């Protein structure tokens, strides 16, 4: 029953959302160049279904690869910062400053450095935009480990590594998954920033740009909805992994 509810309730809320949207457009009598309604989307989607498949896949795999790499970068930096106070106070200003820079301004720089390497450019932007929450949550999780947790193992003569993988790492997993959910949604922003700003002719961002140039508003909305659906899909994969690895922290 709980499983069915977990599926039915979100689906129901999505349907209500679309109905409200449709109603809003109909009530205000907006033309579709002002605001497309859900019923305009399907024809747009169908018309360009091949492009959606090709570009959608490009956007999706680059986002996932970027996300996996940002987990690796975020984890490594977070672990270093969690264990060494010197590294922590040394890196924080740089990381915070870096994160405060609008990524849209970094896109042309990256595109210039790695001219023509579309996939790599995109993945780099994804990493830059998504590693920060993971890094911060891991470093806070590790640096705030209560002393008694360490003491029970230290008093038995355990080494740092044993404390890390028996206690510190599993204890930080719930915070890690919380951060990963934030990073997952950020990752799509990263992919599309690159795809929209730099004319690579790849990915859903490019399709969005084409829609803009040809004033095909339903197509633009259809791209946005596709991105939203992909984001939701990836989010639930993270939730699934969280249930496996950090299910103990979820209150039933």
């Amino acid at each position, binding site marked *: 029953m709980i499983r069915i509810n977990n599926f039915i309730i979100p689906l129901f809320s999505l349907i209500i959302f679309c109905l409200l949207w449709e109603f809003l457009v109909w009530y205000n009598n907006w033309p579709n160049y002002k605001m497309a309604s859900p019923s305009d989307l399907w024809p747009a989607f169908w018309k360009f279904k091949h492009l959606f498949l090709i570009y959608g896949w490009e956007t999706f795999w680059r986002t996932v690869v970027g996300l996996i790499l940002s987990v690796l970068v975020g984890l490594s930096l977070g672990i270093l910062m969690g264990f060494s106070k010197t590294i922590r106070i040394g890196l924080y200003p740089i990381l915070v400053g870096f994160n405060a820079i609008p990524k849209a301004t970094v896109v042309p720089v990256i595109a210039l450095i790695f001219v023509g390497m579309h996939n790599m450019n995109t993945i780099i932007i994804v990493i830059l935009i998504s590693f920060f929450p993971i890094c911060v949550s891991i470093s806070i999780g590790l640096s705030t480990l209560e002393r008694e947790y360490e*003491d029970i193992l*230290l*008093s*038995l*003569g355990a080494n740092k590594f044993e404390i890390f993988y028996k206690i510190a790492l*599993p204890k930080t*997993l719930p915070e890690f998954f919380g951060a990963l959910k934030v990073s997952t949604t950020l990752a799509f922003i990263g992919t599309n920033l690159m795809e929209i700003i730099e004319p690579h002719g790849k990915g859903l961002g490019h399709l969005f740009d084409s829609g803009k140039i040809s004033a095909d508003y339903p197509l633009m909305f259809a791209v946005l909805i596709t991105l939203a659906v992909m984001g939701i899909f990836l989010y639930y994969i993270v939730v699934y992994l969280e249930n496996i690895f950090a299910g*103990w922290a979820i209150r039933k």
Partner: protein
Amino acid sequence: MHINIEKVSHQYETKQGMLPVLKDLSLSIKRKGFTAIVGPSGCGKSTITRLVSGLIKPTQGSIFISNKKITSPLSTVGMAFQNPVLLEWRNVIKNIILPLEIVSKNMTYNQKISNALDLLKLVGLEEFENNLPSELSGGMKQRVSLCRSLVHSPEVLILDEPFAALDAFTKEDLWDVMHKLKKERDFTCILITHDLREAVYLADQVIVLSGRPASLQYDVKTNFNEEKKISDLYSSEVSQLLATLRNQIEIAQNKND
């Protein structure tokens, strides 16, 4: 395993400079003894547990376990704290075997589990071996924590106020669990506590520390009865002992002011 603390002084580095917590503390605990250490708040009782377990080194003086000087953590020590610090992602039985994963790496998994189950039966929690800590009450968590501190058959057990956060009746239950464990297992025990009744009921020696920097102020044997019962705590003999200890604590607190 007798424990000798010889002329130990210890100080911590703080923002306000060096803070001396122990000064020329000497005391000895006999083999298989049960010693309770009481004293005013913040007088350095927990420092003693960290010193005896080898987690920190004294600024001056030395500590000997069976005439061997302690310089680093020993796998023959078990510890339990006021906070049961159970690993929430492991069930009860897997929490208990944790020390064995560090000190008895060659032991088979089944042997570890069976050692843990023996202890779990002693504390009366055998039905809960597969539960997660979040499903247990405070008293049950503390029982599991005691099992974990004893699973590797340590020669010295260090208890840092393990019953302080429990309600009065749960506390008394756990005192009896402690009596049972002490009877079944062979270890020397140091108990840090604020509860004089607990000290008198559990220990055969009670030590009162002076205010910070702490040194030995009062040392008394409490062998008023071979088999201690809760009702003994209301006898006139024990009341008198408790009054004496209370008086000693007050003297210690005055020194602190």
